[in-house]
């Protein structure tokens, strides 16, 4: 006896039933907050957070007139670009190392996860104390090594704050990136290397012509996700920069928070407008990046 034929319609409804929970979840934690963000960016709020009416695009116009915006935008570019590039370069080396067999490899692999597993706030606080001018361990170490003649106020000196924050940013981004690249390395079949060896390619040549091209999908994933994570990173900049007045070392994300709650603007609407701009920026940045590295080609 042939089974009952299902109509296309019923299949669609059944699919919807199964998709339902995840749709609700996406609606609740992605679309709903996004819609509220856009709504807030078009509204005026008093200093207490009380809704005072619809103002159209006025918040966006005001945002463009903020003096600090250029500095903050430049900071953000430096913050994202340097961390992502340095992280990927170091991670390439780390992944290569972890791909080799050596005694204690398991231990090293576990150790690499630690900065990833620790809370960002805890890590940042730890670095605040490492960098501290009076109590920190970094100055005495560098002085005893003869690198520094005088102690440096790493988090107070305008010329070192960004570098100090970037170092922490790289430190916490390494585990994830290394593991993505390690996974990429392990998908490269051994016989390709075999062929390269038979052809008499040098180690460097093999790396450049075999490993790197085959690692491309993993590199893309690592770079794109890092751009997004680093751009959106709040705790490091917030914690390491909390002693500094003004907006001289803020990124778009901490600037947004300061606009809403910690500056004389104290304006949720304006901060929401910057939030929308941030989402748009990160989308554009990722699209431009994927276009330049020709995503489709890499897929093939």
């Amino acid at each position, binding site marked *: 006896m042939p089974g009952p034929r299902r109509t296309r319609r019923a299949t669609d409804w059944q699919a919807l039933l199964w998709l339902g929970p995840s749709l609700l979840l996406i609606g*609740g934690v992605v679309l*709903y907050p996004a819609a509220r963000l856009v709504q807030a960016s078009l509204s005026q709020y*008093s*200093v207490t957070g009380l809704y005072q009416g619809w103002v159209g695009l006025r918040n966006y116009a005001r945002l463009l007139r903020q003096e600090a915006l250029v500095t903050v935008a430049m900071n953000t570019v430096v913050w994202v670009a340097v961390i992502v590039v340095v992280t990927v370069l170091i991670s390439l080396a780390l992944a290569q190392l972890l791909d080799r067999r050596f005694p204690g490899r398991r231990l090293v692999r576990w150790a690499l996860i630690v900065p990833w597993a620790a809370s960002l706030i805890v890590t940042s606080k730890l670095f605040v104390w490492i960098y501290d001018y009076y109590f920190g361990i970094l100055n005495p170490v560098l002085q005893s090594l003869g690198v520094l003649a005088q102690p440096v106020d790493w988090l*107070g000196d305008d010329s070192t704050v960004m570098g100090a924050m970037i170092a922490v940013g790289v430190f916490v981004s390494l585990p994830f990136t290394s593991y993505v690249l390690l996974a990429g390395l392990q998908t490269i079949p051994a016989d390709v290397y075999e062929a390269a060896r038979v052809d008499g390619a040098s180690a460097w040549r093999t790396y450049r012509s075999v490993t790197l091209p085959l690692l491309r999908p993993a590199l893309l994933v690592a770079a794109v996700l890092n751009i997004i994570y680093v751009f959106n990173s709040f705790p490091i900049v917030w914690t390491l920069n909390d*002693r500094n*007045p*003004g907006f001289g070392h803020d990124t778009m994300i901490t600037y947004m928070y300061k606009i809403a709650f910690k*500056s004389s603007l104290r304006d949720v609407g304006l901060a929401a407008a910057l939030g929308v701009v941030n989402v748009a920026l990160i989308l554009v940045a990722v699209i431009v990046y994927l276009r330049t590295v020709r995503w489709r080609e890499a897929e093939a």
Partner: protein
Amino acid sequence: MRRVMPVLLLSVVISFLAIACDRGPSAKSGGVASIKVVIADYSKDNTRPFWQALSAAYTKQTGVKVDLQVIDWNSIDQQVTTMIQNNQPPDVLNLNSFSSYAKDGLLNSSEDVLSAKTRDDFLAAFARGGEYQGKLYGFPILSSARAFFYNKSLFAKAKIAAPPKTWDEFVKTAQKITALGKGTIGYALPLGPEEAQAEWSIWMWNNGGDWKSGDQWAINSEKNLQTLKFLADLANTHKVTQVNPGKTNRTDGAFQLFKDGKVGMVMGFSPLAKQLDAEGKVDYGVTEMPTNAGAAVTLGVEDYLMAFKKKGNQEAVTKFLDLYYQPENITRWITAEGFLPVTKSGLDQMRSNAKLKPYLDALPNARLVPTTDPAWDKVKLDVQQNIGLAVQPGGNPKQVLDQLQKNATTAGGR
């Protein structure tokens, strides 16, 4: 793509439905079953236990449940703003500002939610500090006063007989302590964003300046410019402060250095004394602020309780506030936290405590920052974010004060 569209549309519809649903508070007619009480976290050991016990007693007495939220100072502004933005304000809120909330018409005044007995018990200065347009909206919850802390061992080493009374003596004292070397710091000056307005207020007042002159902001007055230049000189000319005072916060900066015995002098308050006593590492004295204007002035800080207007909550809130303001309750808590009283009955009870004497003595001469002006909530943040820049090498005190003045004047308009 054709199949994705309906799914996307559905999600969009769902999210907009959700937006529509959470508009408007869920008000019940006549009386409420529970009230939301939001309290700032003054200390891990005392705040939550006290308010939990008080809430339990309240529920037992009235049958009204308490949704108690104890929120740390770093995020309370953010969380309260979000509550109000989402139309879910608390019934009772504890914060260090109130007038913006009164201005927005969100609060009940004391006449609506406090008994006459409670209202009459407030110390006059603190009751005045909670008034907006002639009515009491910010009910004093506790107070504190700053005092001048000095390290007795360092004073002895530098052969300084007594703490400085004037600014000239202060500079000389700081120089002698700094001259001890080995990283010793004469005075720890915290003008970083955490609490710069407090440090600045004290120096400003002790030079005869003020935030306002009459009803007008006077942040860039001649006196204040002189004061800010004096502070910049401490850092850059006399070099008697810690490194980068414009980028040092109070709690993990200046206080930390003083607790470590590296600092000769710092402006502290009773909770710092409590920590110093607990650690027992530094032999310290507490005295009046050095002054350049004759009489020493200190900063009094008053925090507030506010009663939000919500349908049917008036009776429940009144009973809750009455319970807190029972002399034994409010005094028990203020004593536990190491703060100062805001009520006459509390002052009478706490006078006997010798440890509190320097602060209680200072209280009559304590001045409050202009929290009664709604513009203050923005001015305070502006000062926190900017005044530190003036004492950095190459900083421009005049430009910083002029900008603060300009922003303060426009903040009132908005």
